[in-house]
Structure formats: C-alpha cells, structure tokens
C-alpha cells in the first residue's frame, strides 16, 4: 500500500472525529486536510511507527485544539438546546433526589470496545447532545484537556464547565444504556 492509499483510508475516520468535535463540516474538512498534508510533507516522521492511524490522530488532535483556539470568539450556541439539557437532568431525578430510572448494570462493557457497532452508537449519542455540551465533552475526554484550559478556551466559568460535563455524561450514560446495553426499566 502506498502512502497515498494509506492516507486516503485514514480520511474517513479522521473526518468522523473532527466533525464530532467541531460540529462544522467545512472546518472539519480543513483540519483533516491539514493533518494529511502534515503527514505527506514529513513521510520520514512516521516511517517506523507501528500505527499510522494513531500517529495521524495525534496530529489531528493538535490541529483541532488550534482550530478551537482560533475560533474561540465565534463559538455560537443554542440556549434553548442547553436549557433542554438542564431540563433533561431534572427529568432524571425525582423531587426527593432519587433516580427516576435507576441505572442498571451493563454486562461486560469492556467487550463492547472491540465492536465497531458500539462506537457507531456512541457517536450517535454524542451527536445528539447540544452542540456546546458535545464540544466540551470531547475536549475533556477525547482531547484530554484539563477543565481550566477548557474554561479559558470557551470563556466560561469553571462551575459552568463542570455542570456541562455532568449533563453530557448523564445524557450519554442514558443514551448508551438504552441504545446499546438495552437497559430496561
């Protein structure tokens, strides 16, 4: 397989990540192109690496962090959507603070990590989050940024950041529970 073929195969998975994180098709295509170009321009830099994909994903993450920084002031978000996310949490608990639908146990979840279908469901669940929740969650868990850095990049307070991560985790937990692990109530 030539380098060009290998890079062409990478384009689709990289684009999937970039779209999930950036929620902007054109921007996502830009960062993926930049990533592939960076690889093409320095082919010797990954010659001896076991996984081109892991290496490319690492570069993509840096490009995405740069893109997030550049457009910090352009971030738009939908307040209605976010209010709905807050309501969703309210709907998960009774007035006395107990779970409306207590979490059920997920049978051998680690085996899901070997199945590509699991990641399709995870991706759909992330896409269903309000845009800003998804972006913050991906910054935290996929780009592995620390909360203070996320606050600074998005100009939000630390408390706000934590609340949004909580909402994202709650919604994703519920979405995976019903959509993949078949939790029943």
């Amino acid at each position, binding site marked *: 397989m030539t380098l060009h073929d290998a890079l062409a195969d990478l384009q689709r998975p990289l684009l999937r*990540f970039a779209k999930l994180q950036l929620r902007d098709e054109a921007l996502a295509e830009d960062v993926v192109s930049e990533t592939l170009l960076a690889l093409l321009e320095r082919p010797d830099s990954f010659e001896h690496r076991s996984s081109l*994909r892991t290496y490319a994903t690492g570069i993509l993450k840096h490009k995405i962090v740069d893109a997030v920084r550049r457009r910090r002031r352009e971030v738009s978000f939908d307040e209605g959507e976010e209010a709905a996310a807050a309501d969703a949490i309210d709907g998960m608990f009774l007035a006395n603070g107990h779970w409306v639908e207590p979490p059920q146990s997920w049978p051998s979840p680690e085996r899901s990590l070997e199945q590509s279908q699991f990641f399709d469901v995870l991706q759909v669940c992330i896409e269903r989050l309000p845009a800003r929740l998804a972006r913050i969650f991906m910054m935290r868990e996929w780009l592995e940024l620390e*909360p203070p850095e996320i606050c600074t990049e998005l100009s939000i307070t630390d408390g706000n950041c*934590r609340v949004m*991560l909580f909402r994202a*985790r709650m919604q994703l937990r519920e979405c*995976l*529970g019903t959509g993949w692990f078949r939790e029943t109530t």
Partner: protein
Amino acid sequence: MKLDPTIRCRQAARLLSERLEAPLPTGQRLQLSGHLLICASCRRADRHFVFLRTALKAMDTVPEAPPEPPSDAPR
C-alpha cells in the same frame, strides 16, 4: 472518620462527575463515600461514567467495520 450519608442520588451523581475533573474536597468525599455504601444505583452510575472515559480513549483505535463478506454468487 465519620461517613455522612446525607446526600441524595442527584447530588451523588454530580459529585461522581466532578471527581473525574479533579479530586473532591474531603467533606464531599465523605458524603459521596457514605452514599455509595448504601446506593447500588449510584455505584453503577459511577462505573458507567468511568466506562465512558475509557470508551472515548478507545475511540482512536476503533476497529473499522468489517468489509462486506465476498459474495460466492456467480456473476
């Protein structure tokens, strides 16, 4: 050390999420530990939150969907 089981699931879930960002202050740690001792639902939520983190880390190496099986049918 006295465990303090005074928080409810809603606050416990919030603390479970917060401790994935940074270690909790002692008071909250005691409250959360006390709650988890008596609440199986929140113990599950804890495992699910931690699993979410693991899953996101595993995303980079997602196995691609297997290609369509070759067809044996004559053309």
